[in-house]
């Protein structure tokens, strides 16, 4: 089974967040990075499937040179090789642009299973995997908690709401977006890190993938980003004790929404 796992490099969640001068995103020079959380679970799911059924795990990441570190991390944990989509044309893409590039690269590579995380910890769009699947013309399932292989293809557990879930049968190749916390992440070992040096990381740019830069133009933009304003307001409720209690209950229920 040939599995491609998409890994996004995102700011560490204890990063110092400062808004950039244009007010459109956070200043990246202050940031340290890590693998997006749900993507890490995708990688683990892929490695476990490989251990059970054999095959190959390929770690794919799109972004500037620094994202190689997430590919190396994946190689250290046991992925067999890496693909790095790097091009200035890939800077500042929206989910559609990223999905387009991923679809082109994975189509060229070929696969049985394409895994992404459910959503990224920075933008939180939860669209990339689905867009890639649509562009590839393949079936997809979101918020996946478990993957099994069967004769027909895949048997996949989806998370629904309120603790309910659903098992879905689907053909392969397919695209799955993986939920966080579904398995126990393995550590890289020092030997794994040393072995990763010898594994291949293939670099692909827009031209090689036959992507026309215009097709990547963002369909969405950030106008302004700002920190939530904290403000304290004191309201005095007046009236009889009974009135006050009733109004207070109403406010707690409908404004503060604490019950």
């Amino acid at each position: 089974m040939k599995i491609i796992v998409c890994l996004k490099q995102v700011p560490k969640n204890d990063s110092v967040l400062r808004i950039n001068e244009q007010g459109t995103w956070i200043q990246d020079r202050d940031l340290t990075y890590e693998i997006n959380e749900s993507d890490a679970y995708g990688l683990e799911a892929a490695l476990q499937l490989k251990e059970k059924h054999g095959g190959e795990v390929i770690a794919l990441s799109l972004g500037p040179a620094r994202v190689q570190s997430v590919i190396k991390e994946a190689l250290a944990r046991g992925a067999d090789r890496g693909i790095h989509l790097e091009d200035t044309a890939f800077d500042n893409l929206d989910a559609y642009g990223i999905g387009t590039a991923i679809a082109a690269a994975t189509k060229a590579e070929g696969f049985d299973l394409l895994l992404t995380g459910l959503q990224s910890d920075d933008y939180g769009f939860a669209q990339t995997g689905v867009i890639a699947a649509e562009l590839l013309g393949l079936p997809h399932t979101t918020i996946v908690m478990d993957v099994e292989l069967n004769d027909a293809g895949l048997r996949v557990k989806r998370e629904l709401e309120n603790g309910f879930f659903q098992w879905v049968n689907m053909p392969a190749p397919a695209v799955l977006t993986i939920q966080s916390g579904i398995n126990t992440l393995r550590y890289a070992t020092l030997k794994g890190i040393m072995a990763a040096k010898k594994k291949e990381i293939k670099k692909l740019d827009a031209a090689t993938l036959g992507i026309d830069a215009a097709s990547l133009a963002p369909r969405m933009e950030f106008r302004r980003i700002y920190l939530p304003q904290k403000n304290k307001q004191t309201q005095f409720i007046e009236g009889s004790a009974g009135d006050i209690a009733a109004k207070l209950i109403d406010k707690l229920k409908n404004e503060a929404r604490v019950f």
Partner: protein
Amino acid sequence: MSETGKVSVVKGGMFLFEGRKSEDVFTREDISEEQQMFAGVAEEFMQKEVMTRSEQIYAKDWPVTRELLLKAGELDLLRIDIPEQFGGLGLDKVSSAFVGEQIALMPSFGASLGAHTTIGTLPIVYFGNDEQRAKYLPRLASGELIAAFCLTEPSAGSDALNAKTKATLTPDGKHYLLKGQKMWITNGGFADIFIVFAKVDGEKFTAFIVERDHGAVSGHEEKKLGLDGSSTTAVMLEDCKVPVENVLGEIGKGHVVAFNILNFGRLKLGSRNIGGAKISLNNSIAYSKERHQFGRAIANFGLIKRKLAEMAIRCFVGDAMVWRTLGMVDKALENVDSNDSMQVLKAIEQYAVECSIVKVWTSEALATVTDETVQVYGGYGYSKDYPAERAYRDARITRIYEGTNEIQRILIPTRLLKGAGKDQLQNLSESISDIIDRTRIYFGDEGVPTARRTLKSVKETARLALSSLVESHGDKLSEEQEAVALAADIIIEAYAIESAILRVEKLVSAKGADACRIPTEMLRVYVNDAADRVAISARNLAGAVKESAKLMQAFERLAPQTPINTIESRRLIADSLIESGRYLW
């Protein structure tokens, strides 16, 4: 490893007599991406596996500690220094010390792991024969076996060679019977392998590899001030029967084993010490931003800022010293055959002075930082519910073990006089006048260049101190410990100042002066204060040696400085810490 490829080999102890350029030294900034990844594994392991079990570890639930050590072994954290052919990774000291720094997140567990990998395992790595290495190293590498180092005895602490433990050959010539008692043994309660020092026939100080089953018996757990979660016990050897094959190194050469291994121990303790200091500093930053008094976060108060800045300066300078030394040792080890243990030892032995300096300086820096952290936390610093209290207690041991700081202060000048300094300090009386001629009062403050000039004076002072010691006390130096320690303090500052300068120069050439404003301020403040400390030590020394008039004259020339605004500098440093929320260098 070629990580340190850029750095050239320098002779140990030579820093007082030669100049260094920043491209000649290794700094923290030279740590490779791969080494960062190694450390990442260690950090994740500490956060997820160890910190989550702190309650059991502090309750001395040793099976949990053993299980965690085994897990550390699975991640290859115990095999870094072990040669590849014996199940190790054969990596450099920078890698193992950088991993060690992450382990400092919990000093108790750090002590267990560090005692195993460094003083427990390295004796076999460097002194074991191939049979011993093949027999023990693979299982020490995996964490299946845990090791301890048994040098200290009830009546032989600093005076370790005065050991009473005896080894007597059995009549059939097949075993040694060991009889005696070891004290304060880290991992004593649960180790399987003990590196024991005993005197063959009551005379020849010798190292042995002792298995628990040979008859080593643990005493009760010591009730300690700190490191609650590390096992420290006596180890009783009552007719403990050790096969002759388990003599480690040569009979009568146990001191070579003990002292060389402690050099590694001291150096690695350096990276753990500064690692610990950074954790305390980060706690102080976070707490001082949250805690409000008089309507403001206490981080806004000048006296709290002064503390934060001072802690950061210690972390910055300490790292400069630690990584410079590690890089130096690695470079020297790169050029010798790693299978030829005598060559390896010669390579490390020459840096004994630097290792002692690192041990003393970083353990005292950690003491300052953890003490000030308690102060930043105020009453909460005194409470067991906050992290400052434990850090303060855990730090205390680092000035005592791996050779007390007093002993190190004696060793530093003594070794320099026997080693590098022997050739360099000929014609002592002449050199004093030379030095007086060369020393000049300086004024002005342009950051790094001023620091460079101060360094020149401090090094002159250090050489002057050394030569005046010899001139005044000759071979009776051992009875003049106070004077020797004053010289040691000057030498230590010379190494600290130089290391900090080299690190800042390297940073500036990589990132540009603007990006290095804060490191440059840290350097200015450190050098400013260190110059005064040197002047005080020198003045006290001058008062106590012959030719004091000449010396006084020299020292006085070294002392005057243009005042700089250290208040402003410390505020700048503190403000950057407060803004970023943590120490970033």
